[in-house]
């Protein structure tokens, strides 16, 4: 089963976003996976899913 990379969206067209250009050398994983970790760690992500389960 392939797990979806939640922080990669190659069809996304930036609008009012701040854009960063990175050069990365992945550490024995694919470019896509490495790129996913960059976007995750530099924005809202964390290594584990939140268990707070906040409700309205």
């Amino acid at each position, binding site marked *: 089963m392939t797990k979806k990379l939640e922080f990669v969206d190659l069809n996304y067209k930036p609008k009012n976003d701040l854009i*960063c250009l990175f*050069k990365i050398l992945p550490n024995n994983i694919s470019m896509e996976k490495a790129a*996913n970790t*960059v*976007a995750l760690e530099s*924005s*809202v992500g964390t290594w584990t899913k939140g268990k707070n389960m906040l409700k309205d």
Partner: protein
Amino acid sequence: MDKGQEYVERLKAKVFSIRGNLIKVAYPEELFEKDNVPNILSSIAGNIFGMKSVKAIKLEDVSFPKSILKSFRGPKYGIKGIRKMMKIQTRPLLGTIIKPKLGLNTEHHAQSAYESWKGGCDIVKDDENLASQRFNMFENRLAKTLEMADKAEKETGEKKAYLVNVTAETKEMIKRAQLVENMGGKYVMIDILTAGWASLQTLRESNFKMAIHAHRAMHAAFDRNPNQGINMFVIADFARIIGVDQIHIGTGIGKLEGDIKDIEELMEEIESKNVRAAKKRLEQKWENIKPVLGVSSGGLHPRHIPFLIHHLGKDLVIQAGGGIHGHPLGTEAGAIAMRQAIDATLRKISLNEYAKTHVELEEALKLWKK
């Protein structure tokens, strides 16, 4: 979907381009406190540099959306404002740094500055590591050197500026900048990286009358390694958005590392209104943010002038320290030789030809062969 997951969906960054080893990531503007540079950098240039998922990572460039551009002041003067203040419309500005780097007492410092201005320098700046050491305390140095600037202005009829280094703990730095304003100085200089982004913001947002000269000491710790760190484009972008009026960009020649092609691209990044995308550069429309004047400094002497003007144009500060104070006939002659080299280049006359009728240039060319 639980609430936490909803927040993630709304604010997450998205990788929208992968080409070879280069990736582009889009961050929703809401992710940031818009006028807070440390906050922005803690996301885009924070933990990611140490992640195990990458062997190396370099932040090559950043492009700001309009909403973030609008929350910053940008340069107070910029290129046009500096030219107006200095009454220099077309030629590059000539500057020097007092040498030796450290150790001159205040009288010798002021004297050396005077000779530089007298010979033809427009600006004289402190070295990056001069602050208020015991051998040359800030307030006295400021007063004596500004006195010499006034004297040189009267004698030459040209505008003369002293770029005093105010770099210090932030509150102390603001006190020093206030002294510069009270004494009628035109500029302050700050080591933007060792002082830190927050303190640069404080200095700019204090809205003093002076222009801000940004020295980039420590940049090579971020930008020298081609695979890891932060490109100078990013440092220059944040300096521009906060609002320095001029910033060091390198020389492409002489003692410090840096390829001239990279420096040409960096020059466009800080001096253009609309920056085009290049291999490692993002498009940027700068909107309300004025262009910043580029400063070439480090190991320069008169023989380098044609190369610099050819590659970097006239909207440039050319600074020489050793290349002026090391002149065989002394500091004043050294400044004269640099001005002669600029004049010759703008008049499209070779330096060797011009040196036949200009003895200061002739002496400089004899000493510095390449």
